Every structure is written in C-alpha cells, then in structure tokens.
C-alpha cells in the first residue's frame, strides 16, 4: 500500500468501517510511514474534538442582540438595491405609456400618403404572388430562371441553386456509373462477341446523348427540359451497366 491509498482510507479506518484485511494493511503502512501516521493522528484529533459535547461554550452571551445587529447590517446593504430596481421599472413604464398612451395626431396629407403607400405595397405583393403561382402551375416551361432573391440567397449560400442541385445529382450518378462500370468491365471478357458489340453500341448511344445534353446545359443552364432528359439518360446508363453486370 502506498501513501496515497493509505490516506484515502484513513477516514474510513478511523470510523472502524474498513474491512479487516484493508484495516491490517493500513495499520502496517502507518507503522512504517511517519507522514501517514501524522495525518492519521490529525484526523483522529479532529474526530475526537467533534465528538466532544462542548457546543454550549460557543453560545454567545447575548444571542438576541447579536441577531439584531446582523439583521440591521443586512437591511442597510439590501435596501438601496431594491430602491434602484424600483426606479428603473418606473422609467420603463413611463416610456411605454408615452408611446401607447399618446394620441396620434396626423394631418390629412399624412393619412393619405400612408393609405396610398399601403395600397401600393399590397398591389406589388399581389402581382409577385400571382406571377409565382402561375409559374408554379406551368410545370413544362423550359427556362425557369431563378428569381433575384433566389440568386442572392444562392450566392451567399443560404439556398442551393438549381445548378448546384444538378451538379450534386450528377456527381452521385457518376459515382454510381463508376461502380457499375467496374463490375461490368470485370464480366465483359466472358461475353460473346455479339453481346459485347451490342453493349458497346448502346453505351455509346447513351454517351452521345449525355454529351449533347451537357453541351446544351453549358449554353443554357436554366433549360429544365434538358436537365430532366440528362437525368433520364444517366439513369438509363446506370440501368444498362447494372443489367449487363449480372450476365
């Protein structure tokens, strides 16, 4: 047993709550270690002192007067703080009552300007809403350009633009194609010549389609129909590779 372990157990040891074996070990250590023996002695003294029933010696001669003094001191320290809080609340209440309690005294021209302003804003909002609604309804429009708000949000990274969505989707599709391509490449050596040629011919056909669509999208990134067709062609390529990899 080392000193640290011994000192951890000293308190329990003094309470006679230690197991017999541990207690013997502690005793052995205390017999050879002067430092721990001193600690043990100090602990024992504290315990003895606490066990003595001498609390009566510590009762002050006039406890009532003492409590009165303490009470006065506390009150003198707390009262100014309470008073300050009350003053701040009154100030706040005063400002609000000024805003809400005052009567609105507006001239005719002010009222007219306000009404016209509200009407104008309402008209603009209605026009924007109707425009967006009709755009949503026509699912087949080829070039649905993003709104200015969408562009701004896209630039600051708060909204993913259709181009970003497309890029991510194509990346995923390319990864899938890469996977099936490897699997097909491993199997194609076993196919007969006709099957190999047919596979290459069809893959080439799809690749040409993908190339054409990519070219169109480079020129016109907002062409939704081409985007849709590109998605479809890439999915067809995945299907072709997957199905031939089973052979």
């Amino acid at each position, binding site marked *: 047993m080392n000193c640290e372990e011994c000192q951890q157990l000293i308190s329990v040891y003094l309470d006679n709550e230690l197991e017999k074996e541990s207690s013997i070990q502690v005793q052995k250590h205390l017999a050879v270690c002067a430092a721990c023996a001193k600690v043990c002695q100090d602990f024992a003294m504290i315990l003895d002192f606490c066990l003595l029933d001498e609390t009566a010696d510590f009762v002050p001669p006039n406890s009532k007067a003492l409590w009165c003094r303490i009470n006065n001191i506390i009150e003198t320290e707390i009262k100014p703080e309470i008073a300050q809080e009350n003053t701040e609340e009154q100030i706040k209440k005063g400002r609000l009552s000024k805003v809400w309690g005052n009567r609105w005294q507006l001239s005719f021209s002010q009222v007219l300007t306000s009404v016209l302003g509200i009407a104008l804003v309402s008209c603009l909002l209605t026009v924007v809403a109707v425009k967006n609604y009709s755009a949503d309804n026509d699912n087949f429009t080829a070039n649905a350009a993003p709104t200015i708000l969408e562009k701004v949000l896209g630039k600051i990274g708060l909204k993913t633009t259709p181009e970003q969505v497309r890029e991510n989707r194509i990346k995923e599709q390319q990864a899938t194609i890469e996977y099936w391509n490897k699997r097909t490449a491993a199997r194609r050596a076993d196919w007969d010549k006709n099957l190999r040629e047919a596979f290459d011919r069809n893959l080439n056909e799809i690749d040409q389609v993908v190339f054409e669509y990519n070219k169109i999208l480079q020129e016109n990134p907002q062409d939704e129909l081409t985007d849709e*067709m590109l998605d479809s062609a890439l999915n067809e390529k995945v299907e072709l590779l997957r199905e031939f990899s089973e052979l």
Partner: protein
Amino acid sequence: MNFPNYNVMNVKLKKWVGFLAPQKTTIFLLSVVFFFVSAPAEVFAQKRFSKSYPASKNVRLQLTNRTGTVTVEGWDKSEVQISAYMEAPAANMQPQSLSGTIYINLVKDNQGRGEVGNVNFTIRVPFDSSVDIETRMGNLNVSNVRGGLVRAHISSEGDIVLTNIFASAVSAENVIGDIFFDGDIQREGNYRFTSTRGNINVRIPFTSSFRLVATAPSTRSISLGSLANSGLRFVSEGRRVIGQIGDGSATLTVTNQRGSISFIRR
C-alpha cells in the same frame, strides 16, 4: 521461257484417277459421315423446351431472358404454355410456378456462364394475365393481353411490339429499337414508352381520356395525327407536347431521346 508439258501431266492424272476409282464410294460415304458429325454444332444443338402450367385467369408471367426473341400471346385457355428454342451453347432454364406467378429467369439460371446461346420463347397465357418480360438483347412481342400489367423492357437493343393490349399499366423501354403500341387506354391507367433511338408509334382510340407528355428533344419529331386539334400544345421550343384529352384520368408518357414519336388513330 519453259512451258510445262501438258501431255505428260494428263497421263499422270489419268493414272491417279484410275487408282482412286474403286475408292470413290468409300470417299463419298466418308464425306457423308463427316458432314453428319460436323453439322450438329449448328443444326442439332438447338434444343427445344416445352412445358405447360395450369393457370388461373389472372396469372402473372415474369420472364427475364438473356438474348433472343420473346413472343407472348394471350389465348382463351386457363393454361400457360411455354415453348423455347435454345441455341448452342444451350442455356439452363428452371421455370418456377409460385402462388399464381410463373418465373423464368435465364440471367439468374446462367449467371457466371461465359457464352450462352439465344433463347427464343413463344409463350401462351390466358387473356387476363399480367406479363412482365425483359431481355438484355432481342425483340419482345406481346399480343392479346388484357391483364393488369404489361411490361416489356429491353436493356439494350431490340424492337418492342405490343398489339391488342387492354392493360391498365403498360410500360415499354429500350435503348436502340422501335416501339409499337396498339391498344386501349384504360381509365386511370398508366402508360409509359421510352426509347433512346428508334421510332415510337402509339396506336390508340382518340376517344380515350388521358394526360399526355410526349418528349422528343433531339428530333422534335412528334406527330399528333388526329390528336393535333384536341387541345394539346407544343412547349419548350417544340421538344415536348403536353395536354389533356377528355377528363385526363389516365397518364400517357412517351419519351424518345433521339427518335420520333407518332400517334395513330385506332
């Protein structure tokens, strides 16, 4: 220049012919035997498979072929009759009939085998059957079927011909090849025809009700026939036709990446 002496050569040739004359019959017989020994590689290697299954009316046929032509015909019998001609090297085939569905999967049954010959199927099914057939390469023909589903899928190239089809869900897709559909459009049905290069011809009654989306982005060749005056409109610079005929309860989607689309009155 020295020319060969043909007289001497003729005499030598006659001697050889005279020597061979008694053996003519033997040579002839040997050649016949050789022919029959070598010919089976091409002629006799074609195996025939034939099997029939009793079937309820709404049986489902699910066939996956590797290469070859598949012909499925509806008939007025409660029986599914499968005939297959297997070219050499002959494919393994283990059809299964499980709870109203007949499964034939030649891709699974021959997985890992190198060369497998074409398998040409002729299958007869009850009229009310559902047919789901696919092949990696080859033609698919389905006729006289009015079950819930008709699906014909070619992974690569081949033509699809669907005639006299009255199913509520029809799908036909290939990469290179033509697609021809001749059938009815059922209420709330779903019809989808997709190709990358080929011609898609759809022959339907023009009194049908459906919502149409036909897309031919490369060729812009969409021939509406009599449907032209039915409220359909070209959008996206003529690459797509959309619109509704009647109450538009069914959905008809036709996509041909690099080919034409034609609608024909039935």
